[in-house]
């Protein structure tokens, strides 16, 4: 079965640089979630999109922005990178149906290291 695809899998950047992370949801999934998992920490919700519109926002810095495109893939843009942005960034996708009984499926993550 097709899974969530994230690219790149690993990324090394310098402080103050920018980074773009991409997420391709499972086919027919219309909702994308972004989570950040710092070293030794639990995943923290950043932002979500449903049908190309932002549906919820969590602890996402103003330096970050994201969007969902017409093909439902999503991109997380990160500017003015800081050392503390080093983390594993997960994307998850879900299909909104008539009930709430749909599960989020996670991608393999993008490991970002800011030097």
């Amino acid at each position: 079965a097709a899974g969530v695809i994230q690219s790149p899998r690993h990324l090394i950047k310098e402080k103050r640089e920018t980074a773009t992370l991409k997420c391709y949801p499972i086919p027919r999934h219309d909702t994308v979630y972004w989570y950040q998992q710092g070293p030794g920490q639990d995943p923290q919700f950043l932002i979500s999109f449903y049908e190309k519109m932002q549906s919820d926002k969590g602890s996402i810095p103003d330096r970050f922005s994201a969007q969902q495109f017409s093909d439902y893939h999503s991109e997380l843009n990160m500017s003015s990178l800081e050392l503390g942005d080093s983390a594993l960034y997960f994307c998850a996708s879900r299909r909104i149906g008539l009930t709430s009984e749909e599960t989020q499926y996670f991608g393999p993550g993008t490991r970002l290291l800011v030097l």
Partner: protein
Amino acid sequence: AQSVSQHNHHVILSEAASLELGCNYSYGGTVNLFWYVQYPGQHLQLLLKYFSGDPLVKGIKGFEAEFIKSKFSFNLRKPSVQWSDTAEYFCAVSASPSSYKLIFGSGTRLLVRP
């Protein structure tokens, strides 16, 4: 605000021992509950989930969890662990009508000695 609490941060067991990981959540309304597992260097995988119905849910790899509404708990159990169960286990809840984002607990690192 919703929150999830996992009581055990580190658990060490020998193979064949029984496992129970505690999870409590705080939210007054209807919740969806999940346990995810993260093997070393890998992404989160769904172990099991509870939406409604039978409060005892069975998941993959012999795991099960029991939802006790009166205690706001969703503890994970496995009768006999294997070395391959060494991983980090996250309890999560979703309840937001706007997005059903997941709120995770702090995780429990399980080490199973062969």
